[in-house]
């Protein structure tokens, strides 16, 4: 009996060892697939290869205005979650991709660079161009023209009530959004002689009365010019937009991913450049920043397709409502917002929404309705909820605000001048309003997290860093900084505090003795104390990796 028992135990033991070994191997195999090291050797990645797989089989997604409004107003598309943006690299920045190209945020741009923006040529002349089609959609009247080389352009006019307004907004918005880093189409201003227009033999239009495509007639153009501002010389100032290369795939959405695009793996509501676009939208009053004002183009290169994502249609930013001066509500309240509506209804209108009291300055008509005094960046809203904007966290906003902080007064003035307002008061007002709004954006969104930036650990252990808010005078210097050093194990993602917490008053510190002598990763967590900015107490944590004899920044956590 005892022998049997011993034998059974031995057999059980062997079986247990074997099963355990198998379980360990399986666990190791699966674990290895789900959790890699925190930092890979190629971190931080500055280019996201989101052209890796062929996307040429994607189909068009063309949302209608009503659908986009209803879904985003009464539904909750996408995921609303307080989670870090999912496409940032390890230093909390956005890599270049088909969505975004780091420009002013990462490198110095001259004023000439900014003003040039996406432009391919200095100016366009419409000589030799032919009218090739009507304009199928959009509020701004216009049509399409083709240049002698066959390149297609969209031509749009300003409303008679507000000459230069929509075209000016488009020019300014395009230059800014290009500098931010978004893909935009190049747009130009030109003068058009209505009498000299030549209609192409095969020009067609989708009849606005019945939707049927038919031959374009001169009377179709008359309808456009009936709703166009005419210049004193009898000509028309027009906006000329070059068609982006590739095959149109409709618009992108601010939530989810395209199910048929293999490269689109990050839910759009969790993309940093879409969340942070709220900052830019607020600054420039781009209340029309919604999915239907975006553009996806399929580009084929070396037999492989990839989608480039564009922001476009800036004709209703700033003080422009495209065909009228911007409404008072725009930027202040969604088109449909439950609570203020019910309050207004219940009180028979005695409840007054705050934006109704905004006193807009008396400005040239080309400016439309725009102001900076009542502007509150945090309260700014687009036309209806935007899932990516709703997900914007302080670290997303900080990213956007840092880009905004790169625009000097001179840069802003130069971009506004590109709009070629005939009234110098318009240029002056717009410039000053944008400067004032920029300062409010920076004061708001540079101070919600600890704004420590650009940390460097020198070989002798000296730490230096900057303060993004102080650097642009969005805050006074911190009373003191708190530093907690740690050693970092990249394989297990664990931090081991080293030394006591340090308190310094200047933007500099020193690594504890011995910390830099061993290991490949170290880090420091920094908080700042400022009586007006409690957000500065949210630590900013920086990770450094030994590379040769130096320590290079490899990771940033903020907020």
């Amino acid at each position: 009996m005892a022998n049997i028992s011993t034998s059974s135990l031995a057999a059980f033991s062997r079986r247990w060892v074997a099963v355990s070994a198998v379980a360990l191997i399986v666990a190791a195999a699966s674990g290895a697939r789900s959790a890699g090291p925190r930092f890979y050797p190629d971190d931080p990645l500055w280019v996201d290869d989101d052209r890796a797989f062929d996307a040429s089989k994607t189909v068009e997604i063309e949302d209608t205005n009503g659908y986009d409004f209803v879904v985003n107003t009464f539904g909750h598309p996408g995921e609303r979650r307080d989670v870090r943006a999912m496409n940032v690299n390890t230093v909390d920045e956005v890599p270049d991709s088909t969505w975004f190209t780091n420009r002013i945020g990462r490198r110095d741009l001259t004023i000439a660079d900014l003003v040039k923006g996406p432009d391919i040529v200095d100016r366009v002349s419409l000589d030799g161009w032919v009218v090739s089609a009507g304009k199928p959609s959009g509020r701004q009247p216009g049509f399409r023209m083709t240049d002698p080389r066959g390149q297609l352009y969209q031509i749009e006019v300003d409303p008679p009530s507000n000459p230069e307004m929509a075209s000016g907004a488009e020019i300014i918005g395009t230059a800014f959004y290009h500098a931010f880093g978004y893909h935009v189409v190049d747009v130009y201003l030109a003068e058009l002689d209505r009498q000299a227009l030549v209609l192409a033999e095969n020009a067609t239009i989708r009849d606005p009365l019945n939707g049927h495509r038919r031959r374009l007639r001169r009377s179709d153009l008359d309808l456009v010019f009936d709703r166009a501002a005419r210049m004193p010389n009898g000509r028309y100032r027009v906006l000329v937009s070059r068609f982006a290369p590739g095959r149109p795939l409709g618009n992108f959405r601010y939530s989810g991913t395209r199910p048929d695009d293999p490269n689109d793996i990050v839910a759009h509501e969790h993309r940093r450049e879409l969340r942070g676009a709220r900052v830019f939208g607020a600054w420039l009053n781009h209340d029309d920043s919604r999915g239907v004002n975006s553009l996806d183009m399929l580009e084929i290169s070396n037999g492989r397709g990839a989608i480039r994502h564009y922001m476009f249609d800036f004709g209703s930013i700033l003080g422009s409502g495209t065909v009228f001066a911007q409404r008072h509500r725009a930027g202040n309240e969604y088109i449909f917002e439950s609570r203020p509506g019910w309050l207004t209804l219940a009180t028979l209108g005695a409840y007054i929404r705050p934006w109704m009291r905004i006193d807009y300055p008396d400005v040239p008509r080309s400016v439309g309705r725009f102001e900076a005094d009542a502007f509150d960046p945090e309260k700014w809203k687009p036309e209806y909820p935007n899932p990516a904007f709703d997900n914007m966290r302080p670290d997303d906003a900080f990213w956007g605000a840092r880009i905004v902080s790169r625009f000097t007064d001179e840069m802003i003035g130069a971009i506004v001048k590109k709009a070629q307002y005939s009234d110098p008061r318009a240029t002056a007002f717009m410039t000053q309003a944008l400067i004032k709004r920029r300062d409010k954006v920076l004061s708001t969104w540079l101070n919600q997290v600890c704004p420590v930036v650009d940390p460097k650990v020198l070989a002798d252990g000296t730490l230096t860093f900057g303060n993004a808010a102080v650097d642009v005078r969005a805050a006074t210097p911190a009373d003191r900084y708190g530093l907690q050093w740690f050693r970092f194990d990249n394989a297990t993602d664990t931090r081991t505090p080293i030394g006591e917490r340090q308190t310094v008053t200047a933007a500099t510190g020193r690594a504890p003795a011995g910390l830099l002598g061993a290991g490949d990763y170290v880090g420091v967590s920094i908080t700042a104390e400022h009586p007006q900015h409690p957000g500065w107490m949210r630590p900013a944590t920086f990770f450094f990796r030994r590379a040769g004899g130096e320590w290079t920044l490899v990771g940033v956590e903020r907020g």
Partner: protein
Amino acid sequence: MLRISAVALLLGLAVAAPAFPQEPATRAEADRQRRAAKNDNLKPYEPGGFERAMHFVEERGVFILGREGFYPKIGSLTTGSGFAYGVGYRDRDLFDKVAVLDLWAATSLRRYWAAEARLSLPRLANNHVMAEAWAGRRDYPREHFFGLGPRAARGDETSFAIRSDLFGGRAAVRPLSILMAGAALEHLSPDLGAGKDPRVPSIEERFTTATAPGLGESIDFLRSTAFLEVDYREPKNAREGGWYRVDLSRFSDRNNRQHSFTRVDTDLRQFVGLLAGRRVLAARLFLSTSNADDGATMPFYLMPTLGGNDTLRGFREYRFRGPHALLLQGEYRWEIWSGLDGALFYDAGKVADRRRDLNFSRLERDYGFGFRFNTDEAIVFRVDAGFGSRDGKHLYIVFGGIF
């Protein structure tokens, strides 16, 4: 045996391992593996039912209502007709977009009928001149008549049928964008009949030609009109500005001149916007006065009326009728949401048998509230509830606007 099994299992796992993606060595490779995984499971984009429905409504539905060629004619034919439906045919770019042709015929839930052909040239001479011509037939079987003058009693309600053939034309010049002046000529052949409303007696059972001039007669009229209109509303569903119009009309009895008369209608509407135009004070003064030729009488069915969804909203349609009329309306409108306004209103007015009685004493009054679904250009649909009149409460659901 067990050992062999375990080894075999381990070997099997080892062999199977390459089926998993290899552990990425770089971030770029890790991202590529995620994309590869999605690439292996790509799904075609499938729009949902709601998305398809919205596409249909926005891409096709709008064209169904506003389409060229045949189109559904829906709405209202006249005050009190009830919801009307029918079919129309239009061509809005005749002669290279110079002219608009609109033909339609419709009936209503109350069995009103109408048909019309209209040719308009709305934008001649660079928008400075407009002209139009029309011909039509109206067949309204349940028009209400309570008697003439301010003392008409609700208990005297009757109905009558009126069928009218008409044709005419008008032309106008617009020297300024806010100013239009013009003239019109129209031939009318109204033909009266017994009312078809089963709830009330027909007009001839209670009234005579003495109390309802024109009753039982077939009279052809030639109406010639001159008008002046100033319109500086901003926008057309006004939140600011004004709309003023004066019509001087001569109705000539083409049969025996016993019913010829002259009429002047003045309609003044003023809008004051407050709080970014989200609150609007709207006021209207309407005055109509007529002069019958010596020895002639004015037919009751061509007299101005008060009562109904667009005049005195605390009263039934056409409750008051007389040769002279005065109407005062005031509204306080407040925007609840974009596209929906609330309104509090007050109406006062009277009809008079004599012009000297056209004053502000003994006005009929009502008040109420309403809701308006609107765009910048027009009120699309509204609900008004009128109270405070001597005729009790009235609820109006209307496809269309108010002043």
